[in-house]
């Protein structure tokens, strides 16, 4: 196999690895936004998933338990946002921002509590290469499954109805607030797997700031994917590709900061190009207050 082919395959492989956490986060974002709730707190959910899975894996010695705990943590964090957004009807973007700040701080606090040191945890039993591959494949399976659920199942139709017009949905007997709540929480469960992947599959520890804004790039992926699971996955692959390029270009002498900035710049450029031409679910981000 010649060197170029090997290099290309390496980049493709790296793309998959870089894209997988984005895919999970973006899928969580899609489900949430299709029901009408913008989840800015994806970053916080990734953090919760990443930290909790490491902490539990370290405490129990089982990375599987750790992963499950990470999912539960993500769901709990999402539930806070879901509650504030549905029952309290607050501004979803502001609440999501607060959630991110709180989650990052909670994880840092947790590091000191559990590991008696700031900055990073100890190394813990991880999911290893097999786990990494399983999670990568699972991401694509989840994307296909979510696409199917939204398009073809009764619950999916209800979710879509709540995202378009919760008042009309309620007049058909749907509990829009409860539907939105569960969409956000289940979305949180999916997104948290992205955090689990980062800490327990790609690595074997949690370090402060390891999520590095991926939750925000995932939001951009939701927009470019036109709020569909398959579309968001494609966008996540696109951004993952830019992240994968980072190392090769850095070796070629491009400044490291520019490389690190690439995914964010790509998101920014695409945002300018796409915005205004795609339509979000009609009630996306609009709190529904029962009259």
């Amino acid at each position, binding site marked *: 196999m010649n060197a170029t082919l090997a290099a290309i395959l390496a980049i493709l492989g790296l793309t998959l690895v870089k894209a997988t956490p984005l895919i999970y986060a973006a899928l969580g974002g899609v489900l949430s936004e299709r029901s009408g709730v913008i989840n800015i707190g994806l970053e916080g959910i990734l953090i919760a998933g990443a930290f909790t899975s490491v902490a539990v894996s370290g405490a129990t010695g089982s990375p599987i338990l750790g992963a499950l705990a990470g999912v539960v943590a993500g769901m709990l964090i999402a539930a806070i946002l879901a509650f504030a957004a549905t029952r309290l009807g607050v501004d979803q973007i502001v609440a999501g921002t607060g959630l991110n*700040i709180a989650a990052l701080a909670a994880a840092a606090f947790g590091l000191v*509590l559990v590991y008696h040191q700031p900055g990073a945890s100890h190394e813990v039993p991880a999911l290893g290469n097999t786990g990494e591959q399983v999670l990568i494949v699972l991401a694509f399976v989840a994307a296909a499954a979510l696409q199917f659920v939204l398009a073809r199942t009764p619950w999916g139709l209800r979710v879509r109805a709540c995202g378009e017009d919760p008042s009309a949905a309620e007049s058909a007997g749907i509990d829009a607030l409860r539907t939105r709540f569960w969409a956000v929480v289940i979305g949180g469960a999916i997104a948290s797997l992205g955090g689990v992947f980062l800490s327990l599959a790609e690595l074997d520890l949690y370090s402060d700031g390891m999520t590095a804004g991926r939750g*925000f790039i995932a939001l951009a992926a939701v927009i470019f994917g036109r709020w569909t699971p398959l579309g968001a996955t494609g966008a996540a692959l696109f951004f993952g590709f830019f992240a994968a390029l980072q190392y090769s270009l850095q070796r070629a002498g491009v400044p490291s900061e520019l490389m690190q*900035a690439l995914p964010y710049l790509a998101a*920014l450029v695409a945002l*300018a190009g796409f915005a205004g031409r795609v339509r979000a679910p009609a009630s996306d981000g609009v709190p529904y207050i029962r009259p």
Partner: protein
Amino acid sequence: MSALLRSRAFRDVAVVIVVVFGVGSLAMLLAHVSPIDGFGALFDGAFGTRSELAETLVQTTSLLFPALGIALAFRAGLFNIGAEGQLILGGFAAGWLGAQFPLPGYLAIPMVLLAGALAGGVWGAIPGFLRARFHANEVIATLMLNVVAFLLATYLVNGPLQQGGAGASETATLPKAAQLPDLIADSRLTWAFVIALVLAFVLRWVLQRTVFGYELRAAGDAPEAAKRAGIDLARTAFVAMALSGAIAGLGGATIVSGVLHRFNTGLSPGYGFIAIAVALVGNLDPLWIVVAAFAFGVLQSGGVAMQAEAGVPRDVVSLVTGLVIIALAGRRVVSSLRST
């Protein structure tokens, strides 16, 4: 009507107090510290002595600038989460230009501050432009730009615009003429505090008493009605974001000029994000924001002492700040969501 406002405000203040003391106490207990010891250390560290109070006011000032900027954007119906990046770049511009081009005193400080405001203004104008021209959501744009700002500043300060020698990650020390004079001797508190207070009064006056402020508030409170009343929404969004960034950048400049006397990439422990909480607690009113900034300044400076004296990790302060933001997210439902 004012009675109604006051009661809702009091209810919100009550919520904030419950969150701060309730969750704070819980966290302290988890860290095996009695809340009395923990909060005691915090408040003692915040204004136990004169110099500690001065330090609290330093934190207050550093929060006040970005909070005022964020509040201005909020009033225009926009969410500026990018204050952190605007603040960083404002600080960098101030630090680099101030060291690069020494000027006599009465010119140096204005130049340095102006540089910071301009840099922040440009960084705020980018998402403002994207919003005005492409209807791009300024939330995601400013989030992206925060990261890019930090990376850009890091690159410049270590690379092509290096002043401090390789690996220093900071600019050269500012000449004395470019350093803001102290307000309280032997402290880090400078006239920046006064500038911030004046700015708060000016902003309040602008919002309440000028046509510009009227139109900005209309754009934020009822964009469709504002449009039909002849208000240019795109231009308002652009100007509001640019101004918001300029104020945050000015804040970064005051940190560089007054506190650190140089720029380094660690100049902000997240002021741009904490300021979101400050703006909300202050109900987006510049004068109440001064009070809120003081409250959070207490938490910031007291938090250091709390960690040193009582062994409670400082992250508790950030945790509580985040929860306050969630608790007060109902204060303002931003109408910017009508962009993609």
